[in-house]
């Protein structure tokens, strides 16, 4: 069985940052795996500029952050296995990897690292309405990958459900990619994301229906594909108001209803999870070092609560530094000083109308650690 000092699962912003910091911190033997054919997670589909302050890479596009990180990882000589899924985690930190081979086949490889960092990211929520399984209904993130990474239009006429920043940004990018966005639909009384994104869409003449939801999607298109979308107004108790239906001709419905953490590997290790609404459900509680209740297993990024790329990146750094420190490669004082800086930056990222809730959620999640860890 292969032995290594550190295994990082997931090469998105959190996993890449973790691997880079661990390597810089002195870890010699490190393996980074990702189940996709390219590393970088969702960074490469984020062609828009990030917002926030300068310290948080505002004005820089996700795709450029991804490129920078990959270059850094390459310079440091980090070993990345792509097309590789971690399909099992067993006692004594034995990981079962399904390693992609150059010919497209896969091979099972067992690895026993001394430390593990789980940065498996998040996954899109679905919404149920009549016809939600009709071909042409997809996640907004999936549609974003199609246009920005694969350069394929998901359809011609699109209805977007959800007006958080993902819903707004992806709607605009779909328009840039040559699709017609017919309407945006939002159940809440007001738009969820930043006004600056919403006005871009309104200026282009696309209607945004707040206090509305999708009642039904009809699949009379080619091969049963989406043909029509019926939306309906909601009352104060979120009940549909009969007689307020509007029908749009469309071939695609994109769902921007938030994400949930991918928690299969953390569950396999009996890591203690805590329910946290704002973070998307059950998430592992952790220390200031990002260590879970399972000693030597660290968590970072959306796995520990859905936030955004910058927080994932900083959490990844914390985990990487902590792993290097616990492996004996970094002096405690040096590691702690770096971690203090990162926590300061994280506090900055969790500010403002969108960040405050996440600051509270993170505090609750971490406050639960001592009690949960005692069992």
């Amino acid at each position, binding site marked *: *069985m292969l032995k290594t000092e550190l295994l990082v699962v997931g090469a998105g912003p959190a996993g890449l940052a973790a691997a880079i910091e661990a390597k810089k911190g002195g870890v010699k033997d490190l393996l980074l795996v990702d*189940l996709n054919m390219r590393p970088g997670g969702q960074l490469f589909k984020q062609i828009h500029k990030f917002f926030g302050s300068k310290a948080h890479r505002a004005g820089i596009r996700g795709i450029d952050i991804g490129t920078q990180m990959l270059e850094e990882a390459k310079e440091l000589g980090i070993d990345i296995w792509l097309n590789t*899924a*971690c*399909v*099992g*985690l*067993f006692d004594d930190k034995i990981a*079962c990897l*399904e390693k992609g081979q150059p010919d497209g*086949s*896969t*091979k*099972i*490889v*067992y690895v026993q690292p001394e430390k593990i960092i789980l940065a498996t990211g998040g*996954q899109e*929520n*679905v919404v*149920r309405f*009549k016809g*939600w*399984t009709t071909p042409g209904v997809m996640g907004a993130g999936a549609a974003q990958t199609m246009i920005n990474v694969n350069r394929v239009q998901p359809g011609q006429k699109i209805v977007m459900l959800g007006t958080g920043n993902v819903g707004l940004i992806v709607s605009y990018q779909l328009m840039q990619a040559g699709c017609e966005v017919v309407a945006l639909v939002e159940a809440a009384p007001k738009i969820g994301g930043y006004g600056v994104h919403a006005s871009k869409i309104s200026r282009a003449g696309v209607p945004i229906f707040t206090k509305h939801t999708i009642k039904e999607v009809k699949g009379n298109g080619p091969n049963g594909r989406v043909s029509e979308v019926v939306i309906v107004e909601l009352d104060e108790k*979120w*009940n*549909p108001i009969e007689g307020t239906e509007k029908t749009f001709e469309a071939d695609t419905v994109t769902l921007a209803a938030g994400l*949930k953490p*991918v*928690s*299969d*590997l953390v*569950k*396999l290790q009996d890591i203690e*999870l805590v*329910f946290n*609404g704002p973070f998307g*459900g*059950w998430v592992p509680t952790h220390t200031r070092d990002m260590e879970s209740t399972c000693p030597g297993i660290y968590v970072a990024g959306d796995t520990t609560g859905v936030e955004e790329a910058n927080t994932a990146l900083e959490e990844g750094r914390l985990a990487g530094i902590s792993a290097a420190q616990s492996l004996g490669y970094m002096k405690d004082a040096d590691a702690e000083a770096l971690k203090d800086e990162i926590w300061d930056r994280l506090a900055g990222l969790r500010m403002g109308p969108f960040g405050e809730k996440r600051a509270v959620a993170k505090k609750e999640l971490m406050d639960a650690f001592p009690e949960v860890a005692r069992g």
Partner: protein
Amino acid sequence: MARLDDDMLVCRCEEVTVGEIREAIAQGAFDVVGVKRRTRAGMGLCQGRTCEKLVQQIISQELGVGPHETGSSSVRPPVRPISYGALAEGEF
């Protein structure tokens, strides 16, 4: 929230409907794992990645409990589908 139609699909991998999940709850299921054991919802190719939250919402609605009281899906290796061939050739 409007009541969902019984014939609406919830777990598309195992083709489990809202009605079947309601029936499981009526039989005594009170969490995601209980529904899974009775209906196979969440036991297909995606292992509940898509339907877990939908099942949680239905339990929450039917029993009038909060989302944190509906539990979450249990997990077993392999967490993603792998072929018997790959598994058999694996060296420990």
